[in-house]
């Protein structure tokens, strides 16, 4: 569903953000992208959403090239961004309705909107509250609700749990599980190794633009993912072929 093939991005100042990255996220799978700041995780998502153009290689969503036919590709994906302030003067419901309309889901009743907001764990009283009074966690949940409402086959999430307390985090994970079971392909970038371990089917570790390791669930269920992560992060590039 979400496919990257030899994706490379070099910026004008010669910084190499992505270095021939390839992997695939199949439907019904959660792929967690781990890595330090500046490793290239967000760049990947940016290319998938056609915010920037790759230098070489391609990114596909449901078979459509994200950069050659972005409008087509974006029909099949929804996006949960990090740190979104949304429209402060609108209520949660109004924000939701707006983005639902944009994604093609018009004619949704208020009940439908309320259902989704409940699903992500927003309290009832927040539905009619102006977003500028929301806490970070509430805004995060609303962001997720926006993505859920579109109900696309692929979902991209950029640091989705960065503002959530443990309880909300758990709720979020269970929702992710439900989405996966519903057959969605989900790509998540995160720092949160703990949560990644709990939910991911595949974990990709990125370092300086390269995907230096991919581990299946079975691999890290027994071993401590954190240990693997730290070890991989210190492994020099040359040893990649040996490991994978």
């Amino acid at each position: 569903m979400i496919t990257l093939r030899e994706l490379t991005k070099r910026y004008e100042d010669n910084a190499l953000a992505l270095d021939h990255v390839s992997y695939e996220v199949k439907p019904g799978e959660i792929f967690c992208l781990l890595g330090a700041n500046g490793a290239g995780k967000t760049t990947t998502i940016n290319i998938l959403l056609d915010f920037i153009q790759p230098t070489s290689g391609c990114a596909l969503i449901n078979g459509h090239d994200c950069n050659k036919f972005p409008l087509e590709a974006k029909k099949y994906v929804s996006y949960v961004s990090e740190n979104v302030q949304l429209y402060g003067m609108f209520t949660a419901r109004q924000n939701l309705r707006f983005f639902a309309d944009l994604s093609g889901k018009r004619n949704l009743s208020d009940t439908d909107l309320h259902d989704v907001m409940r699903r992500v764990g927003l309290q009832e009283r927040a539905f009619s509250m102006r977003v500028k009074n929301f806490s970070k966690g509430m805004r995060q949940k609303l962001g997720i609700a926006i993505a859920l409402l579109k109900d696309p086959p692929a979902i991209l999430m950029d640091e989705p749990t960065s503002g959530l307390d443990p309880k909300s985090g758990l709720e979020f994970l269970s929702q992710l599980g439900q989405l996966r079971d519903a057959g969605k392909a989900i790509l998540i970038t995160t720092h949160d190794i703990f949560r990644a371990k709990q939910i991911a089917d595949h974990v990709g570790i990125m370092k300086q633009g390269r995907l230096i390791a991919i581990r299946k669930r079975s691999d890290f269920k027994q071993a401590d993912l954190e240990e693997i992560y730290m070890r991989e992060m210190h492994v020099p590039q040359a040893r990649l072929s040996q490991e994978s």
Partner: protein
Amino acid sequence: MLRTLIVKEIADTALGLRFIATTLLCLLLIPLGMYVGREDYEQRFASYQEKHQAYRQRHGTPEPPVIGQEEAQGFRPPSVLSIFASGLDPFVPDTVITSYTGVFRTVKEPDIDNPQSLLFGKLDWLSSITLIVSLMVLILTYDAISGEKERGTLRLIIANSVPRHRILLCKIAGKYVAFLVPFGISVLIALLILEASPLISITSSHIGPTLLVILGVTLLFVLSMVCLGVCISTFTQHSMGSIMLLFLAWALFVLGVPKACPILAEVVHPLQDSAGIDFTERMVREDIERQFEQIKKETIDPEYRAEWDAMMRENRNKAQIEARLRETGREPTEEEAAVLNRDINRAQAIIDKRNEGANRLAGECDTRIAEALGRIEQDYQNKRDAQSAVAMNLCRISPVSCYAYVVSGLTGTGVTEPDNFFRNAQRFQNQVEDVFYDQVAWRLGVQRRAEGFDVFDPPPFPDMEYGYPTLAENIQAVWPDVLLLGLFSVFFGTLAFVRFSKCDVR
């Protein structure tokens, strides 16, 4: 999707603090300005009527006996549309005084009794729009794109398959419609205030069409400002940067360019000071008159004196002969009889001859003066036109100047009004010349009178009919600026689109 985006834009704009402030300012300032303008117009009109009436009653007909040097007065009526743009109105003279010399003079009654108003300027429609509305629109739109980027919602919108040009278009349309609501209401109130005046009817044929055109051009101007604001917001990453750009753009377009460009035009095409021109003209005229005086002294006067003396000598001769005849009682000789019988009373003929000569000279003198002055005026006019053209074209960099030119042109208070005034004044002078000065004149010490003209029962002076250019003529004059306003909208919009297509939305 278009509708969704536009509705969101309108709602988002309307729910902000800026929108409330904009609404308040518009609702307050536009009707107030119109009200004061209306009051001022009513007063000006009343005083124009009184002046005119008083003049007609007391000096409308020249007082007999007429000597041909009397002056007629013409008054410039205030234009209703000047309520919208006072423009050059305070600087255009309001009275024409004709003169037998052919050179009329103009009088501007100084109005210095409200110095605060003079110090700070009026808040007429033109000032409200160019100063307040432009700032308000820019404040509403400067963070159209950069604000969404900061909030992160731009990413969300683009992540849905919404093409970028559509986003931009909807922003412009949404902001435009949102602003038009308070603006439209204030304009409506202002127009109602205008209609409430007994002297003004906005549906009348000389106000209505022009008013529609002004409103249309104003909408175009507001659109160009919205496009400018959105364009500004595509050039920066953060709202702060947009604000700086807004400050710069507003200062340049509204204050900088309109004031600096006429200065540059003056540097490029300096003009001789207008008082210097008057001085030169006076000197030239006096010169020519002196010349002709000299000619008269040298040719006609001596001739006249010679003939007169000859006649007097003959008269004395005749008297002597008659005396001799009386003394001696004899009959006149043949020679003496010839002298006695000759008609020597040709005083009238001699006088007529001199007058004819003087008149001829006077005519030549007049023509020469007219030629010389005409040349000076034409030269000055050409230079002034050149300078004006440069000033106008330089100013047109700014949509604010274009708008000012259009509105002031349509209201008869623009940069061409002084010329219009002088045309009217010249026409009036010619009229009075036809009716009066050509019929009776005093030139070089001699009065000439036309047939049938009675100096004890002169006809009344004609009235000056002041004509403003028609709407069609005005539109012909201002269409380049209207076109430019449209082009500005397109230019800013295109620039915004180009920037936005390549801009980084992360």
